[in-house]
């Protein structure tokens, strides 16, 4: 098999199945009474955490690709981003259905009055246009540049996701802190990369970076 075929018929299906793992576990645990005494809270927490994790994993792709020169990493990005949206949708549905039981006036009040729900909802809304325009057709229609701009919404989704988690906990901020740190690192990388790209490079610096590039290449 060629590398592209391995990617398409082996690696991608494997990642796809792995990404369904959390849902499979939740379903199994719910059906076999292996969740806690408050299953709705467990489902809410698990689907929310996995949304954030997939957002982080999706944000890892670009730096990973740049730093390792493993260009095929890009082939997984759409799928991982869509899984973030998938778990986000489950999370939001859990809230709408199991938690609030479609009490829309209560939900509207919640979104308006509770900052942690406001930011969580913002994160979800930010993911929507990305999910819709995730097809090749939409990339064509929007044009690469616009499409890329639109998909920077993931930065907002990730930051809002972390804040949502942070504002939700009572005093146990260790986990939100860890996610916050990782997201800060991933966004920081992009800021540094953008500044570098924009800065007019002195000849010496560009020369040295080119040679560094050469050094990294396998000879």
């Amino acid at each position: 098999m060629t590398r592209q075929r391995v990617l398409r018929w082996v690696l991608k299906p494997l990642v796809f199945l792995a990404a369904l793992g959390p849902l499979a576990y939740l379903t199994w645990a719910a059906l076999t009474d292996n969740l806690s005494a408050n299953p709705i809270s467990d489902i809410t927490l698990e689907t929310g955490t996995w949304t954030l994790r997939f957002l982080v994993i999706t944000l890892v792709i670009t730096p990973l690709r740049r730093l390792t020169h493993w260009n095929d990493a890009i082939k997984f990005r759409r799928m991982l981003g869509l899984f973030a949206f998938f778990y986000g949708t489950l999370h939001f549905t859990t809230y709408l259905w199991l938690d609030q039981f479609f009490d829309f006036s209560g939900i509207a009040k919640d979104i308006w009055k509770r900052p942690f729900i406001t930011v969580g909802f913002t994160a979800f809304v930010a993911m929507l246009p990305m999910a819709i325009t995730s097809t090749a057709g939409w990339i064509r229609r929007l044009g690469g540049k616009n499409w890329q701009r639109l998909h920077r919404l993931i930065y907002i989704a990730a930051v809002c996701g972390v804040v949502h988690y942070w504002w939700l906990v009572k005093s146990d901020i260790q986990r939100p802190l860890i996610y916050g740190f990782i997201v800060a690192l991933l966004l920081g990388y992009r800021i540094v990369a953008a500044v570098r790209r924009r800065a007019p490079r002195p000849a010496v610096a560009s020369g040295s970076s080119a040679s560094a590039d050469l050094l990294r290449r396998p000879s």
Partner: protein
Amino acid sequence: MLIKNAPDIPSSEITPERLYLRRREFLKAAGFSAAATVAGVFTADCGADAAQTGPKLNVAKKTVTLDEKLTPFDDVTSYNNFYEFGVDKDDPSRNSGKFKPKPWSIVVEGQCAKPGTYTLEDILKPHPLEERVYRMRCVEAWSMIIPWVGFPLGDLLKRFEPNGNAKFVEFTTIMRPDEMPGQRQRFPPILPWPYREGLRMDEAMHPLTIMAVGLYGQALPNANGAPLRLVVPWKYGFKGIKSIDRIKFVDKQPLNTWQQMNAGEYGFYSNVNPAVDHPRWSQASERRIGEFAKRKTLMFNGYGDQVASLYSGLDLRRNY
């Protein structure tokens, strides 16, 4: 106060605790048609259950009952907050195995005639144990019905002869980082340890306020605050400080741990109040553990008839 007549059968018979404990096996067993499998599950589990249950307590009387379904024993003992053992709901039951509730002593100090260090036996000896079935409303908007075993806190406090300056009473949870992993966490610490709580003297002397030593007719599991803890049923659950090793009579309103942590969200009183929301979530309704639809939260957790008079003239919106 409203105390219903106690039925003359022990709690363990009112609530088929064994059935509750085994409901999961029941469900699993239902999946198999073979009667032999069912029988096997039953016989295999009887011994295990007996081993898990703590020492039975000698409960003299049932003083408070409720017409509400008890929350199953293993939900009460495996789903709760006790940050000394970790922040997840199952951490207390999973991480409290090393904790030693015996021997135990309690330091009594402050504005009273009989301060000193008392052993647990000293503390418990004069008090006949009662069963009190109370609602427990967590500040996180979930609730349970728990058959506590204990005695009125007021009866205990009177023995130390608090003086006229004793306006409040402060309680402290034991500090044992070696046995309580939550107290060891750094970066950042979960709470400023040790955990502290306080009551106004009249709240502490109120007949509904108890010092609990057990639940479901048996000694408190470590996860639920062994060997003794406070239960104040009209306040949010976190007021029910666990594993108490210090009682202090003071003249000024003490700072409780959650208030110290975030005074804008947690007050001194922390009375259950559906009209005053937590800044980040509504307190108007709650999820009873084991139920799907939410219930309306009751003012003072349904104990208004007995306790509302304690707060007449107090702005409960400001004094949350």
